[in-house]
């Protein structure tokens, strides 16, 4: 029965595009109170290394059908066109469902070891009720809440975790945020003295905690495997000149997602002062980045090195401010600012660190971290390249700093797995890992993007993205062309390039070409076709 259901689901994913496109387009109305929209998309990623044509491999053939609906069950104080709803003026129910089938899992034999993990997804991603009772509004249900002014880097946008398993953070974050069950209430205040358009927003996540998830199993294309060998796990430890078997026991210490003591919440006060949009934010939650505490480590009587580690997601306090300002006279630009201080950020402590750096002896600590982001958006004329339309140029400077830094802080994502070498010779079938990823106290990244549209109706939409880490000199480029072929059909072709100026420091952002080497390359060519209906 389950098999039939899966086949039916796959069939639905494939056919919904065609069938739906014959029905209508945009938002489809059913009566006056129900609206439906959605799309079906086929998304193909080809990894390519040094030789574009001869060195490529299909990593994703991801087919997605998404359906979104909205039901207006209360309008003008009348519920279901029948009952008086008292002070409630409007209420709607919104849902968003997604079905995914990645054919690469069936096409590629090497994916067999993944046991179909990541191959399919059938989920109601979001389902919430909006209630308006002026000046209060409430959104209850599974939802995404986005704070902050930063694009694609996390400072205040930490309420929903990310699903980085299938393509890192390269997709629209709307699609990879993990919606949570929460309540979001807003009190629309309006003018207070010299502040305008003010409101107070409160969010409460009673018991729904999920960490940001990453894939670790090779050959899943976006598995975080660090550097070194990609298709082997460490199974040995070298102590002195003796090789020992390694046995790692992992205890899941993530907060129990169904306990009220694990409640998360926060507030945002937003308004305008002297034409400057500003917000003051506070969030009390859990770190969605998972840390690792070493509970015990040592040789047993059989000579095996046993390690017991516990994953932890410590409590975090995030305090932040944002501002944006449209400067029309001199620069014709919109300036964006975001700054946060976060406590409780998990960090690893390097092995062999002195007691003062590793006071608990568990190779784990929490740190305070600050972020400052300054961004500029500007519609810019470049007549030589486009005489009809401006380029939308957006740049960001993102600076992250560990406030209580010590030299033994390590990143947890970049272990280097290598063959075990004893007395100058590799030992077959034995692998060891090392972590030389020392964190810097200050971390920087600069981003730049430019987009415009061409053609009489603006149907050709190029996008250029550049991100650069000045310390590691790692860089990332995306060059994308979107073509709105018809009201139903949209094609995109994009190239992702990872490169570096010098050195081999992987840096904190996952930029650069260290994964672009043969075997662990990740330059990509992406082609997608979307039916929107």
């Amino acid at each position, binding site marked *: 029965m389950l098999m039939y259901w899966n086949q039916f689901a796959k069939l639905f994913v494939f056919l919904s595009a065609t069938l739906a496109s014959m029905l209508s*387009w*945009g*938002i489809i109305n059913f009566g*006056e109170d129900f609206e439906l*929209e*959605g*799309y079906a998309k086929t998304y193909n990623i080809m990894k390519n290394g040094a030789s574009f044509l001869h060195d490529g491999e299909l990593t994703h053939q991801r087919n997605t059908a998404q359906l*979104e609906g*909205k039901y207006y069950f209360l309008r003008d104080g009348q519920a279901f066109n029948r009952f008086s709803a008292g002070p409630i003026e409007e209420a709607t129910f*919104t849902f968003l469902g997604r079905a995914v089938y990645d054919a690469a899992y069936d096409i590629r034999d090497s994916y067999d070891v993944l046991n179909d993990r990541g191959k399919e997804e059938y989920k109601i991603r*979001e389902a919430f009720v*909006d209630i*308006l009772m*002026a*000046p209060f*509004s409430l*959104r209850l249900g599974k939802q995404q*809440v986005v*704070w*902050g002014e930063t*694009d694609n880097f996390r400072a205040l946008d930490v309420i929903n975790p990310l699903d980085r398993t299938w393509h890192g953070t390269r997709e629209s*974050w*709307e699609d990879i945020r993990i919606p949570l069950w929460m309540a979001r209430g*807003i009190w*629309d205040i*309006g*003018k207070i003295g010299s502040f305008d*358009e003010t*409101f107070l*927003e409160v969010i409460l996540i009673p018991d729904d905690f999920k960490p940001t998830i990453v894939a670790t199993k090779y050959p899943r294309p976006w598995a975080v495997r660090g550097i070194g060998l990609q298709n082997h796990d460490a199974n040995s430890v070298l102590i002195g000149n003796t090789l020992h078997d390694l046995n790692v026991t992992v205890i899941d210490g993530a907060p129990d997602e169904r306990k009220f003591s694990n409640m998360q919440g926060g507030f945002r006060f*937003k*308004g*305008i002062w002297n*034409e400057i*949009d500003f917000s003051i934010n506070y969030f009390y939650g859990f770190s969605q980045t998972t840390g690792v505490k070493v509970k015990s480590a040592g040789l047993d009587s059989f000579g095996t090195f046993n390690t017991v580690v516990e994953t932890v997601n410590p409590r975090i306090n995030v305090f932040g401010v944002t501002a*944006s*300002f*449209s400067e*029309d006279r001199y620069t*014709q*630009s*919109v300036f964006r600012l975001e700054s946060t201080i976060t406590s409780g950020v998990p960090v690893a402590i390097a092995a062999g660190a002195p007691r003062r750096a590793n006071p608990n002896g568990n190779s784990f600590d929490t740190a305070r971290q600050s972020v400052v982001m300054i961004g500029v*958006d*500007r*519609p810019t*004329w470049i007549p030589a390249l486009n005489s*009809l*339309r*401006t380029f939308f140029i957006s740049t960001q400077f993102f600076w992250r700093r560990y406030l209580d830094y010590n030299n033994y802080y390590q990143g947890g994502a970049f272990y280097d797995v290598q063959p075990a070498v004893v007395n100058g010779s590799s030992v077959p079938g034995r692998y060891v890992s090392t972590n030389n990823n020392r964190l810097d106290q200050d971390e920087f990244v600069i981003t730049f993007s430019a987009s415009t*549209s061409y*053609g*009489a*109706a*603006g*149907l050709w939409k190029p996008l250029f993205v550049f991100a650069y880490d000045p310390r590691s000199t790692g860089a990332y480029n995306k060059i994308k062309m979107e073509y*709105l072929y018809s*009201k139903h059909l*949209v094609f995109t072709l994009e190239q992702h390039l990872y490169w570096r100026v010098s050195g081999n420091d992987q840096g904190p952002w996952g930029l650069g070409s260290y994964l672009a080497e043969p075997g662990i390359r990740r330059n990509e060519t992406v082609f997608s076709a*979307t039916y*929107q209906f």
Partner: protein
Amino acid sequence: MKNTLLLSLRRIYSCRLFIKKLAIFAISASLFIPALLHAEDQSYQSLRDWIDNYRPGDEALTPGQHLTINDRESKLEALIPHTAWKYYFFDDMDMEIAATRNYPMSDDWEKEWPVDYKLDDDGTLVGFTGGRFPFTEIHADDPMAAQKVIWNMLWRPGTNDQTMPMVTWLRGENGKLDRIMEYTSINTTYARGDHSLVPGYEEVKSKRVMEFRSPRDMAGAKDMSISYVDHHRENSGWLYMPAQRKPRRTLASERTGELMGMDMIREDNSGFGGKVYENNWEYLGKRKILATNNVKTNPEFGGDSLWVPHKTRWEVRDTHVVLIKPKREDHPYSARVVFVDAETFWTHWMFAFDAKDDQLLRMNQHFLKYSEDYDKEPPAQAPYLKQDFSETLGHKVFMHLGQTDINAKKPHATMTHCFTNKKEFTAARAKQFYSLRNMISGRR
């Protein structure tokens, strides 16, 4: 020898005859060809020539009569601005003529209250807070006449307070459809003369929220724009994109780039949507023109490329003709000519000329309907929203039912149907609806 001579003489004769015939043909043709060439001429100068020289004949148009291509020279060329002939005259064209009417406006607009306002040196209106036309009379010899016409257009009561579902078609030559968009604009006037709709917001002229519903790649995108009583203050704007799930501050001072593939720039809005002080002004006098002033319903589109209103009702209207020349040297336009209704101060036609060669770059023409005719001739309902048009009755205003915008250089056009209905907000509801709070979330 004689035969040879005769033959030569004959040849010369026949050659002379040919030359004579050629000369007669050339002279005859010279009388007609320039007119034909002239019809294709879309230069700034040719429009000025038309404004100065073409005048409607004595023969009055009869209400109810349908004008076709056969009436072009005798009746239509004098009433359709010359620059538009290329698009508006076509083989099966059909223009129904309506009687020229007076359209009573709301009694509220006649109210007088002590307001101290003036035009400053750069033509900017200072101290005016709406509720009526700022200038009740326009005198041709007034050096500020052009600016006064535009101020009347910009502050025309009844422009806002509407729910406006819209459908826009983007078409290339031969009617090739490139894109259809559906979106709804809701707008409200705050500045109402002696008071603001929302007390405490006296600096706000009007607010607008616009949300897209199709195509799907734009569905859910919405923007909020606030315009201010102080003309020197730029609008404030926010754009919510569903993919980002948050609003983004936008820049209002960039007004000369085409948006979303449409064939207009922000400055073309209502004929002139820019800043008065950024331009030089000249009043070109009054001119009768044909306008789709009080159409029965949203017009269908005709012509070779389906760019212009067809089989709809036209009315001869008196218009003020205003010449606007940007001060900025890098502005895409060398000049803009706007025909503004002398009674209602709605823009009927706008022509903008390319700074590179003074040829037509963009034009727009507007379809309007008088609110009091909504009961006997209701306009079409939007394909995605049914409205109660009785809410429009009694306001004594014109409702914008759409427009056509043509980019002559591409060439390409954007045609829009607006399914406009009056919507009055209470102060509390306006405060709630036009708020940053409303912009931090969308339909998803």
